[in-house]
């Protein structure tokens, strides 16, 4: 729960006002809930032939296996995207100009492209040039291409967030560029980036739902198929939303706890990732700023 902004205690008039506002607001909320409930009832959305299928284990199993596919694609994409991101980050920090430009060019292109368009390209465009990808591979390739760029920027920000003194001390000790990277910079930067990486995993889980449009058999796809089969689209999609919320909320909490623990243990602050226009990153920032 968020803390009220005004930290000082309210006087009697303030307390009265807050009480009045609470009652009014609470009443309005309750009224809206009742209206929504009645509307659903009136339209027969609570009728048995719509809800009963969802009580069957075989249907629930069908949906949960969809979630398994979601997680599968997200995890695989996460691992590969981290590899791609690492390459890109090192590329952008390279001292060789062409490598820097190439990495920068890649990041610029994939930063601006919608992920769904990338998936469509993999499924509809690539076959025309002879590359046939299964839906799973289309989803993973698109996710890796996009999130590789995002993670690349996160990694770069992580590395840059380190005190300059670290790299200076490393070279003073006689370490080469790669040695200082591998033994000094990256290990420290990696610790700071863990919360951001976990947040990105949450994004990946959400973005896997885009796989529906390229026929990847994940939770959203299965929810829609169930909805058209039984006619209970509203109910099933709501259930799918609830599943997503529970999973992602839990992961976000883990990320936040990691962040707090990190701050306390290593006195490392949150890294500021500039130039990555991804809502998850923005959200994670905002949370870090508030906590």
């Amino acid at each position, binding site marked *: 729960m968020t803390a009220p902004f005004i930290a000082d205690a309210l006087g009697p008039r303030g307390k009265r006002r807050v009480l009045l506002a609470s009652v009014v607001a609470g009443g309005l909320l309750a009224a809206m809930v009742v209206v929504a409930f009645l509307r659903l009832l009136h339209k027969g959305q609570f009728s048995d032939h719509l809800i009963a299928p969802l009580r069957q284990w075989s249907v629930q199993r*069908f949906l949960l296996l969809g979630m398994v596919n979601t997680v599968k694609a997200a995890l695989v994409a996460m*691992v590969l995207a981290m590899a791609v991101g690492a390459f890109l980050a090192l590329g952008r920090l390279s001292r060789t100009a062409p490598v820097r430009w190439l990495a920068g060019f890649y990041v610029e292109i994939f930063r601006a492209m919608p992920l769904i368009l990338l998936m469509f390209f993999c499924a509809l465009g690539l076959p025309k040039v002879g590359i046939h990808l299964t839906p799973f591979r289309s989803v993973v390739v698109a996710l890796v291409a996009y999130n590789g760029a995002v993670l690349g920027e996160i990694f770069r920000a992580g590395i840059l967030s380190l005190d300059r003194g670290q790299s200076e001390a490393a070279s003073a000790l006689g370490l080469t560029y790669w040695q200082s990277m591998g033994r000094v910079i990256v290990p420290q930067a990696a610790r700071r980036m863990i919360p951001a990486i976990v947040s990105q995993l949450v994004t990946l889980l959400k973005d896997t739902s885009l796989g529906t449009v390229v026929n990847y058999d994940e939770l959203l796809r299965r929810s829609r198929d169930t909805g058209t*089969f039984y006619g209970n689209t509203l109910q099933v999609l709501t259930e799918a939303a609830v599943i997503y919320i529970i999973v992602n909320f839990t992961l976000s909490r883990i990320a936040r706890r990691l962040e707090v623990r990190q701050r306390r243990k290593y006195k490392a602050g949150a890294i500021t990732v500039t130039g990555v226009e991804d809502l998850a990153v923005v959200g994670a920032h905002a949370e870090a700023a508030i906590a």
Partner: protein
Amino acid sequence: MRRHRWAAAVLAAMALVAVACSSSSKDTPTVAGNGGQTNTTVAGNAKPTFAAGTTMAKLQAAGKITVGVKYDQPGFGQRNPTTNQIEGFDVEIAKLIAAGIFGGTAADAASKVTFTEAQSANREPFIQNGTVDMVIATYTINDTRKQIVDFAGPYFIAHQDIMVKASDNSIKSVTDLNGKKVCSVTGSTSATNVKAKAPQVDLTLFGTYSDCAAALGDGRVVAVTTDAPILGGLVSTSNGQFKLVKAPFTDEPYGIGLKKGDDAFRSFVNDRLEAIYKSGEWASAFSATLGKIGLDTPTPPPVDRYTAGATATSTTVAASTTSTTR
């Protein structure tokens, strides 16, 4: 110590990727075994031999065929969540054709068919790109489409019909729709057809037929019009609220979409269709699927073995690709 932890993490990650990538073929639901849908009155065929180089030979060698079907069309192609199988008339036709390639009964051949969803707008791209070997997805044959793909069949002639509330007896034919509020789907041939037959109809257009059904239930419209089988599906899930007027107008020939120019394959599929007409397998498939949602089994339509014209390729957006025609 820390280095070992990183190494272990990297190894675990690589193992995960390897396992996931190798088992990715389990994504699409395949039809396994007998879903209880067909009663084959004919003993299974022997495995046929095909001339080398034909599509049939290649499919037989590969041991599988990929078919695009609808996943959301009751009676034709619907995915059943409890069994994770696709059910429907189009599905049965696909299995019967597969039996003609791989031999055996439709149930045996079913395990060799990989179904994938072919939504209306994706049917031509999937055929052109080779994503599927054929499309059986309430695919109406028309000349515009014939420029891009070839059609075997038709295997079914759908007729447009009208759906009203069960208590409504005022609408008996399409001309009764003049001046009434009627619902259909944006860009569909149904909408165009009803306007042609009843020019004073007050047409409301939604995105899907289930939305039209909702509007009918509300009373916002008094009738819904599209192909009878689709309406049949809506009637069967309406819990007795709706009924079919059974006054068909227009003919919509459903065909099997194939790659343009593959005349040998088209010939084979047409031959196979004629064979299952004669053997009664077509009729059993119909009564097991569309029959269950209230349609009477018709006589199978004669196949059209047209000679294809020159192939047309274009690099600009074709005018008709925006419509959601079936």
